[in-house]
């Protein structure tokens, strides 16, 4: 019976609306006071039923809830034979709750969309080799699964056979399809747009990247800042306090009307709901734009950040050195390239890899007598020629003459921040290559946006030499640059900034800078979606996408502002209501309830604005 009434709450709301309408039509239209009263009494009793049940259940588990206040208030009005007020107050309360639920669902929609992307079924290979469709919970690590065009990848896995294009937007926020073939990893929740794949399950259920993201986002939106915990505690005692105040007013003034009006006006709705609403809408927005914000405390801190400290390699730069410039001092450059590639193919040095990648497909010779010169380079015999590849020191050691032109080129390359690789064949200089790590495209623009958002200091810390770091800082317009830094130097530097009273955010790829990520007020990880960094940091930029950073900062600032607005609305409304009940004669229970419900809707609608937050001047 109780549950039946609760489930039919929306019908009850509708019926009491109709009854109230009938009552006023019969009174104003036909001057029929009898029907007016009967209709309102029915509306009151009907309307108060679900509220009474909720109040009773709350009291049973020792909670003085808002339902308790409203029940007493309605009972009081009924007792005073003021059926008009009792009917309207119950109706407004129920209708308000209905609207709250509808609008709250809206603020949670972004996260709901995310969880609904979770795969539900999988096509699994069973013992006899056939494929059958099973619930995703029945998939274990090591199972072989079939993914067809248009289907969701059910688990994190590795492609065994087949090729296809996968939309990884649910993991990376990037909707351009990615090509997948044998040996490549696929993620749960991503969609195979064309092709057919057989995959082996590596991680299932909550252990998949997608599962972890959902769990993180869910925990984040319900995690509370100190301010919120205070509000929670406050509202726990606030509701009983209002009840007490009403009783005191009644005892002192002997005015039941006034006492029950206070009960209605004192309802704490907007205050307790305002801050969580901003939170959930904001975190939802982030999740949709590839920014994971881990909770409300992080949002507060990040919105007030003073200094952003960046790791260089892998953060400001791509982290993948490439040949940037070349000079050949020979006519037969193809042959030089072939010799060079043949030798470098033997090495797994990052610079050698960059060169092999740069030269690409070419004729390869067999290489003999390979000799690696530590801190210099490599010497080998190729096709009967002596090939020396390395830095200036190696050339001097091998007595390779460097003419004026070559020396000028080397100086110029170095100035641009390149590492130098020289190639000599039979004691004669043939080629010069400048290799450097490229700055991520768009980083400069993103850093300017961050400055505009009010970040005072943009600092780069790196283990590279000061020259290279200075160059990067100059090119990107950073305020400070420090080279030759070990991981512990970086965290010491952050500590120093914090001691000066600054709020510091550290942006890194989480590989070797975890102490800094942990120490900074806000640790921001460039997560490729699979990193452990997702777990240890406060903010994760999905797909290592640097351009999400300005969005993240702008968003946290917007969320923080939104929360303040909501607190002002909530507290302001309660103060105005309480003042007007004592100092004006137009205030009554119905108006109080209307304003009260209105303020709840106002904070929810205000929070909803965050769902569509977007950086100004950013179109995507």
């Amino acid at each position: 019976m109780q549950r039946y009434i609760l489930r039919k709450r929306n019908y009850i709301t509708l019926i009491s609306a109709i009854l109230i309408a009938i009552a006023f039509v019969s009174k104003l239209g036909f001057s029929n006071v009898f029907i007016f009263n009967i209709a309102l009494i029915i509306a009151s009793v009907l309307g108060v039923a679900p509220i009474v049940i909720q109040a009773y259940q709350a009291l049973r588990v020792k909670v003085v809830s808002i339902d308790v206040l409203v029940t007493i208030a309605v009972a009081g009005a009924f007792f005073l034979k003021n059926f008009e007020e009792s009917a309207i107050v119950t109706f407004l309360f129920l209708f308000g709750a209905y609207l709250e639920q509808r609008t709250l669902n809206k603020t949670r929609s972004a996260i709901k969309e995310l969880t609904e992307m979770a795969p539900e079924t999988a096509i699994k290979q069973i013992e006899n080799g056939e494929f059958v469709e099973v619930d995703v919970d029945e998939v274990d690590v090591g199972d072989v699964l079939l993914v067809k065009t248009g289907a969701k990848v059910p688990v994190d896995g590795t492609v065994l056979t087949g090729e296809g294009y996968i939309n990884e937007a649910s993991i990376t926020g990037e909707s351009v399809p990615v090509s997948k073939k044998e040996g490549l990893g696929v993620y749960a929740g991503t969609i195979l747009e064309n092709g057919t794949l057989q995959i082996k399950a590596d991680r299932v259920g909550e252990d998949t990247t997608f599962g972890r993201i959902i769990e993180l986002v869910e925990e984040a939106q319900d995690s509370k800042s100190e301010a919120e915990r205070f509000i929670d505690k406050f509202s726990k005692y606030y509701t009983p306090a209002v009840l007490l105040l009403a009783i005191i007013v009644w005892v002192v003034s002997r005015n039941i009307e006034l006492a029950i009006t206070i009960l209605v006006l004192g309802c704490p709705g907007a205050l307790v709901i305002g801050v969580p609403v901003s939170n959930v809408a904001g975190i939802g927005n982030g999740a949709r734009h590839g920014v994971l914000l881990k909770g409300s405390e992080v949002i507060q801190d990040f919105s007030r950040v003073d200094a952003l400290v960046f790791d260089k390699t892998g953060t400001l730069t791509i982290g993948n050195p490439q040949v940037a410039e070349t000079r050949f001092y020979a006519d037969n450059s193809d042959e030089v390239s072939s010799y060079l590639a043949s030798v470098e193919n033997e090495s797994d040095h990052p610079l050698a890899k960059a060169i092999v990648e740069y030269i690409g497909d070419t004729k390869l010779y067999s290489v003999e007598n390979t000799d690696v010169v530590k801190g210099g380079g490599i010497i080998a015999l190729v096709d009967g020629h002596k090939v020396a590849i390395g830095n200036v020191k190696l050339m001097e050691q091998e007595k390779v003459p460097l003419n004026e032109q070559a020396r000028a080129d080397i100086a110029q390359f170095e100035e641009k921040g390149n590492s130098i690789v020289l190639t000599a064949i039979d004691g004669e200089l043939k080629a010069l290559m400048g290799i450097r790590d490229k700055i991520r495209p768009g980083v400069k623009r993103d850093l300017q946006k961050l400055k505009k958002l009010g970040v005072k200091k943009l600092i780069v810390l790196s283990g590279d030499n000061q020259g290279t770091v200075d160059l990067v800082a100059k090119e990107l317009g950073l305020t400070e640059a420090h080279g030759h830094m070990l991981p512990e130097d970086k965290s010491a530097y952050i500590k120093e900034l914090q001691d000066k009273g600054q709020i510091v955010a550290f942006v890194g790829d989480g590989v070797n800078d975890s102490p800094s990520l942990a120490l900074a007020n806000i640790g921001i990880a460039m997560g490729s979606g699979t990193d452990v960094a997702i777990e240890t940091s406060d903010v994760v930029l999905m797909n290592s996408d640097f351009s999400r950073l300005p969005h993240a900062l702008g968003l946290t600032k917007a969320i923080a502002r939104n929360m303040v607005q909501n607190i002002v609305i909530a507290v302001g409304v309660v103060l105005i209501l309480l003042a007007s009940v004592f100092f004006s004669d137009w205030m009554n229970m119905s108006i109080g309830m209307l304003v009260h419900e209105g303020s709840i809707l106002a904070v929810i609608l205000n929070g909803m604005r965050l769902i569509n937050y977007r950086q100004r001047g950013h179109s995507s």
Partner: protein
Amino acid sequence: MKKATIQLGTLACPSCMQKIENAIKSVDGVDKESVKVMFNSSKAKFLFDEGKTSADNVENAITALGYEVKKTQVKDA
């Protein structure tokens, strides 16, 4: 000890949270410290001693309050 996650119907008021939290804690065999009701995702998470109680008992305590239970997952803690 087992870990249970209960997906509830949408929670609309913060006091619902308090009610559900107290109701779950009142079930004998539930680790009181572990009870966590999440408002926005409308989920309840807690640990319980499978020798003393079951997830069904907790579900009943919640539905007796008038709240809907959509899905329950129990895993080894």
